[in-house]
């Protein structure tokens, strides 16, 4: 029973990272891939059918967390309160931007909503970076490990968004954005790989985070590094659709499989 509920929670969190990575990441890259109003409209139209469906996974994860793991929730809230507040605000601002964008036909209004989308997407990615790093390490601390881990996760979000954009923004007349997104996958994968390498070095150098199953974490980090290395190469843009999904799943899997989480067995 406990295994089942843990697996359910892990499934929802990893599912959220893989799916929302696409639309959050693309939201982060709007200034880079969409320079004209028509391109921006296209990006928003590409994100719009997906963002609620991705958020459902997070809501489901929160539901499982609140209903089946109240202790864990309590622990998390205590340790990560400021980050979670920022995450909620980023979520609110981003969704408001997406929801209200086409309600008013005015250029300034749309650019305001686009700003909300970009700012909210960056806030979400940074907050998830902090949450995942804090869960792997021991809590929020202003040390190099937290900073580098966050940078890695943010790069993974952006990479996922670029891969999604390369696929979804292809159109008859406006292939410009899709190309820009596809070109971005390689530098983003390299950035993520470099940040990952330094994070692991710093983590090991500082004595290493207290993991319950370090061997599982090592295998997962190996998979992540391989996925990123494959994306950094010449065929990167072609592979990125699958490798970016694999890559962004890894931080969630590390937390689920190799970090000891405080929870009591479920009653009944």
């Amino acid at each position, binding site marked *: 029973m406990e295994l089942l509920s843990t697996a359910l929670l892990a499934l929802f969190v990893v599912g959220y990272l893989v799916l929302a990575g696409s639309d959050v990441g693309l939201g982060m890259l709007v200034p880079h891939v969409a320079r004209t109003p028509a391109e921006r409209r296209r990006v928003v139209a590409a994100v719009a059918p997906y963002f609620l469906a991705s958020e459902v996974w997070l809501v489901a994860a929160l539901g499982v967390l609140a209903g089946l793991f109240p202790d864990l929730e309590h622990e998390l809230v205590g340790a990560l309160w400021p980050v979670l*507040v920022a995450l909620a605000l980023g979520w609110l601002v981003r969704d408001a931007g997406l929801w209200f964008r086409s309600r008013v036909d005015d250029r300034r209004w749309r650019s305001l909503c686009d700003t909300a989308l970009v700012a909210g997407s960056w806030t979400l990615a940074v907050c998830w970076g902090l949450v995942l790093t804090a869960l792997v390490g021991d809590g929020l601390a202003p040390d190099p490990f937290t900073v580098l881990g966050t940078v890695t996760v943010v790069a993974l979000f952006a990479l996922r968004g670029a891969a999604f954009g390369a696929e979804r923004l292809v159109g008859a007349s406006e292939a410009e954005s899709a190309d820009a997104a596809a070109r971005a996958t390689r530098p983003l994968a390299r950035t993520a790989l470099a940040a990952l390498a330094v994070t692991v070095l710093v983590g090991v150098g500082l004595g290493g985070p207290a993991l319950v199953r370090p061997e599982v974490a090592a295998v997962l980090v190996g998979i992540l590094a391989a996925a990123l290395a494959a994306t950094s190469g010449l065929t990167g843009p072609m592979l990125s659709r699958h490798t970016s999904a694999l890559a962004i799943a890894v931080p969630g899997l590390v937390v689920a499989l190799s970090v000891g989480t405080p929870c009591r067995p479920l009653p009944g």
Partner: protein
Amino acid sequence: MFDDPLVLARLQFALTAATHYVFVALTLGLAPYILGTQLVATLRGDRSRMVAVRFWGGLYLVNYGMGVLSGLVMELQLALNWSGLHETFGYTFAAPLAVETMTAFFVESTFLGLWIFGWDRMGRWAHLFCFSVVTATAYSSAWWVLVSNGFLRHPVGFAMVDGVAHLTDPVALVTNPAAVFAFLHVVSGAMLVGALVVAAASAHHLLRGDDPHGIFRRGMGFAAVTMTVMPMVVVSFGGAQFRIFGQDPPTSGLTYTAERIEAIEAAGPSAFVSAVNTAGELVMMTAWTVMFLLGPVMLLARYGGPLNPRRWFGNGRGSTATGADGPGSAPRVPSWFRPRRWGLALLLFSPFLPYLASVGGWVYRETNRQPWVVVHHLTTADAVTPLSPGAAVTSFTLFTVAFGVLACVTCWLLVRFARRGPEGGPLAEHWEEERSKDPDPVPTF
């Protein structure tokens, strides 16, 4: 007073919940009207009623966005600021909320999406079915939220194991009388909100004599009937809740002994909380009384007296734009001296009444429970997350500002779309035409 994290956390929750409720009540109040209109339109194949469905549906859509956004953030904030409540009553209080979020968010957004994007693409009965699911899930969310809220007032169906409440009787939890009566009270109150929003939008267009599809004439009729019937229903279910107010919950004694409970309650609510409680009750009763009197007046005016639109526009098409020299029924008096114009102008502001009543009533109900958050089990002071004053002030400011801005934007959009009428809403038909002319069609959102 405002450097106390407990006060800030309570005030923040009160503001967030009141803002959220403003949009929820409109969702609950409009959904049955849209569903009924669409049912009649589908049965009769009536195009003008379908235009009405698009118009009210557009308002529903804008309003729903804010309802979901504020609801999600409110729930996160509940978990962040009230961790003591989640720690002890996670299985009994938070679980129904989690179910609510999933049904509201998942099923309701899915079917609302199908309803919007499936317009003219699916069969008319399938399309109607989509909205009936939207309505049913909207009401079921209200039910789950009030199951959680009723639990705070009248905790039932659990056993305490190592200081954590474990659910033992789910049936008792969902049939809690504190939840049942509150649900019926809130739902009937939301009908008043829906009716008066419909009345205000209709009044705006009737004042301009702009009602080619009969949308606003019918809207006024619906509002008049609802406003005559519903205030009695609201007050009956509201009164039924008083039966539970003085009772000790059946689980009393599981956490604290009777003496300890008495000691905690002896401190009593602070003078401020008592004042707020009285103010809430006064606002609720005053607004209710005005609405109670308003209903019959609207009904008489609508069907018998000067508000009867058949007298205003001889053939259904507006004539008031031309002033007092309109054909037939228009009386020869200056335009400012006509009771129906005054009546309609007053109705423009009538949606404030049910909102005031709802928020006042809610403040009254919730402050009445103090010093408890879960009656006889957990005090509000023990439920709040331990926060530094700085963190509490930051969180309060950020959330209050964000909610304030979003609420203002949503209200502005609602008023804007309501004033534009059936031709300008988010679901209006000419958007579809524009889209088909667009060489590079991108689904609007």
